[in-house]
């Protein structure tokens, strides 16, 4: 029975969580509206606020009012850090495609998260609200947590204050106007750019504040930023990008919907929010209160920067290099026992190959058709799940599983593409993220997908020939047959993808990336082309996912976690998007560097070792530098270096003649 009392409790719970969302989403939304920045790092500023507050409160233990001092001081410090971050990292990117902000702030996520871990360690922190606010309170016969009342009240106060600041002060009015229609504000002769630092810092203050109030209610732990950022995006999308009102309504709404579903429709917990997100984006992409014109304000967007044509290396040289690389990869297993253990080929290199394939699949749509998929892990995960489930429930033959994985990934890509590709730019990115999160939450719900534990199996009767288990078919000692199978599949996929890009279909994709309008007015059904490209890409990602299950002996929800989508984007850009081979090299660089950092970190004593072990943060830092200074990726480095340091020699005229190569690089 639903009694009035419990319903009221649920509503209040929902409101208190919702208030936290409001504070987060308000900042995210204004930052997006004014600066076009999708700030993935917002969740980390939120976590940073909570940790700083813990630190301040601990330093002031004994001082009465430590909590209150922390509640004010920590957000201000985070605001300063946020302002500096904007100055140093985001500022150089204005005028580029908003994708670069996503990428950059994703790098910042890694840096800040690891920074927190280095300073505060991995143990969760207890951060209790002061005695004054703890315990229940009874109002009009209804007993409820005093602290939750406090959260609701103070959240409402800050939201109202922000609203007043946005509507009543001169700066606020400019910012609000800017977040709804930047062009208009500029037309009035106001230099909106000057306010960016302020806006970003202010958003960070709100986020930190949210982190503190929620941290004191639950706990302050690593991953709190990762856990909140995606729901916060849902709120922003629901309310409408750039709309403060939307953030308030969306935040409270999502908070209440979440708590109510948890209590009354537990089956839908975790799923409902993403269903809402996807639904809204499909029906009304601009959200409840968003400005519909956002959809087509594409005019001022910069291009995606692709990794040129290999610049100073000519086609033949590159072909030799590629052949040499494949040759070396083929020889790697021969070193087992001589120079290294079987771990290197059978685990590390294999993992690199799988991720190289995954990165290749993303580049196929992102680098060529300009489709930024933030949820590409969906296809990787679906491929992995289908492969394992086929092996467990139908037939243990690995090939059949792999085929099923590719087929299902293709089908899902068709479905997602069918629904979403007509929605442009940022909205498309968000929809793919929503679908991926939906799948992530769905697989934990069913026994058939192994719930939150996942499914574990070997692939028996390998290769359908009855010669043993995948991973157990030895060619010689520890040299495994499957190593060569994976190598052949990955190299083969690359060759196929490259051939597609040299064929009419691929040439149209490149035209779409350059100018979709123009391609459409040459008579191409660009939406259809993009859908098909998305399917090919989904199939390749599914293949990568299926292959990945060999090494992990199965599949779990982590195969669908959004951070993986982020990592594959990092690899793609790191290597050089729009080249097919660049992202594959990027995967190698990313995972290789990770391995090196981990190895050195373990063997180096003291703080340095600890810092090195935080490989994600270091990679994040490198990535941030790349986004800012080498957006065309590793493959453009030779050219960039020559341009900067090379004495005379080539000169600038080359770029023109290189263009033929650039279309499809080897």
């Amino acid at each position, binding site marked *: 029975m639903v009694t009035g009392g419990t319903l009221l409790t649920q509503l209040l719970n929902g409101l208190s969580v919702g208030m936290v969302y409001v504070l987060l989403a308000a900042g995210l939304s204004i930052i997006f509206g004014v600066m076009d920045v999708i700030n993935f790092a917002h969740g980390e500023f939120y976590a940073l606020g909570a940790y700083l507050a813990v630190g301040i409160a601990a330093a002031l233990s004994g001082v009465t009012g430590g909590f209150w001092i922390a509640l004010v001081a920590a957000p201000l410090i985070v605001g300063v850090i946020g302002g500096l971050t904007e100055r140093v990292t985001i500022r150089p990117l204005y005028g580029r495609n908003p994708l670069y902000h996503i990428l950059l702030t994703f790098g910042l996520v890694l840096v800040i998260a690891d920074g927190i871990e280095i300073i505060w360690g991995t143990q969760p922190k207890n951060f209790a609200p002061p005695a004054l606010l703890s315990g229940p309170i009874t109002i009009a016969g209804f007993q409820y947590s005093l602290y939750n009342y406090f959260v609701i009240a103070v959240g409402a106060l800050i939201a109202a204050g922000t609203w007043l600041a946005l509507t009543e002060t001169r700066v606020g009015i400019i910012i609000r106007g800017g977040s709804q229609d930047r062009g208009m504000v500029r037309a009035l002769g106001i230099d909106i750019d000057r306010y960016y630092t302020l806006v970003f810092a202010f958003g960070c203050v709100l986020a930190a504040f949210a982190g503190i109030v929620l941290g004191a209610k639950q706990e302050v732990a690593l991953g709190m930023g990762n856990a909140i950022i995606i729901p916060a995006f849902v709120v922003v999308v629901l309310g409408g990008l750039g709309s403060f009102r939307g953030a308030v309504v969306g935040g409270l709404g999502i908070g209440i919907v979440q708590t109510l579903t948890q209590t009354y429709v537990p089956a839908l917990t975790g799923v409902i929010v993403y269903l809402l997100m996807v639904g809204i984006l499909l029906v009304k992409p601009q959200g409840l209160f968003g400005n519909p014109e956002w959809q087509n304000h594409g005019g001022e967007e910069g291009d995606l920067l692709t990794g040129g044509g290999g610049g100073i290396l000519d086609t033949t040289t590159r072909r030799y290099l590629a052949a040499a690389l494949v040759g070396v990869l083929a020889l790697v297993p021969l070193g087992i026992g001589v120079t290294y253990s079987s771990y290197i080929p059978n685990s590390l290199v294999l993992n690199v190959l799988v991720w190289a394939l995954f990165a290749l699949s993303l580049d196929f749509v992102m680098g060529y058709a300009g489709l930024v998929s933030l949820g590409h892990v969906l296809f990787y995960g679906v491929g992995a799940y289908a492969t394992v489930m086929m092996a467990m429930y139908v037939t243990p033959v690995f090939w059949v599983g792999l085929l099923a994985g590719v087929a299902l990934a293709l089908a899902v890509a068709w479905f997602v593409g069918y629904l979403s590709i007509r929605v442009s730019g940022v909205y498309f990115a968000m929809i793919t993220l929503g679908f991926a999160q939906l799948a992530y939450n769905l697989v934990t719900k069913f026994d058939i997908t192994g719930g939150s534990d996942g499914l574990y199996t070997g692939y028996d009767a390998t290769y359908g020939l009855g010669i043993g288990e995948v991973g157990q078919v030895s060619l010689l000692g520890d040299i495994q047959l499957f190593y060569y199978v994976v190598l052949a599949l990955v190299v083969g996929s690359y060759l196929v993808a490259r051939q597609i890009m040299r*064929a*009419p*279909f691929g040439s149209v994709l490149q035209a779409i990336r350059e*100018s979709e309008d123009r391609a*459409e*007015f040459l*008579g191409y059904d660009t939406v259809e082309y993009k859908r098909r490209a998305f399917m090919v890409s989904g199939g390749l990602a599914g293949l990568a996912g299926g292959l990945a299950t060999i090494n992990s002996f199965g599949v779990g929800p982590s195969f669908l976690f959004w951070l993986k989508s982020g990592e594959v984007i990092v690899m793609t850009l790191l290597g050089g998007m729009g080249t097919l081979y660049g992202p594959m090299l990027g995967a190698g660089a990313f995972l290789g560097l990770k391995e090196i950092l981990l190895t050195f970190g373990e063997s180096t004593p003291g703080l340095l070792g600890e810092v090195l072990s935080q490989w994600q943060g270091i990679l994040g830092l490198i990535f941030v530098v790349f986004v800012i200074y080498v957006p065309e990726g590793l493959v453009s480095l030779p050219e960039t270096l020559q341009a900067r340091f090379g004495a005379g020699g080539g000169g600038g005229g080359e770029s*023109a003649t290189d*263009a033929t190569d650039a*279309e499809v690089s080897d």
Partner: protein
Amino acid sequence: MAILETHDLTKRFDELVAVDRVNLSVEAGEFRSVIGPNGAGKTTLFNTITGALRASEGEVVFEGEDVTALPSYERVRRGIGRSFQITNVFGGLTALENVRLAAQSIPSREMSVGSQLFRDKNRFDDVTAHAQRVLEDVGLGEHAETKASTLAYGDQRRLEIGLVLATDPEVVLLDEPTAGMGVEETESTMALVDDVLAEQTLLLIEHDIDLVMDVSDKITVLNRGSVVRTGTPEEVASDEEVQAAYLGGGHA
């Protein structure tokens, strides 16, 4: 017979009526210029005819078929080609590849899935030959391998005309092809248009009436979304209402 007609074609942006019940009837082979001051609705009219924008009301009829509801790429396939007021070429690709893509468009619908996906794009001889011919025609033969974004501005405008030409259109809509050009370039571009698009029906947007006096068969004058007058250059030039519209529109 009219090849392209519009019936009460209307396009509204909220309250603003950018194109207001426009009726056009363009004969096959005609050179029609659409002139009017800035903001008159010329580009919007083109966008509605080509399908870049959905008409609010009215119809577009091409070769007797009502194409109002068709997406723009379908209109292109039927033979309506266009250029853009702001240069719109594939900047990262070579000039030849730009035109080749245009030439590939129609034949690609007949290609098998296999050759679409896997056959080298340069091994479709008809397409490549057609592209090369068009590139010569617009005077860019020497720049075939130059990246479009590094071409001189005037050459980019020529390339844009080449893109339209290579799709083999029946009707060509050109939106201020000489925008931003100096006197000499303007003249050579107008000569080019007159030359390479001689067989097509042409609709050309210009805000400068003097430029189109000699080449047009007929001129339609647009102001505030409505047709002020359609007639031969002489008729239009001597029309008082046209002069009023032009002077009133703030255009000298």
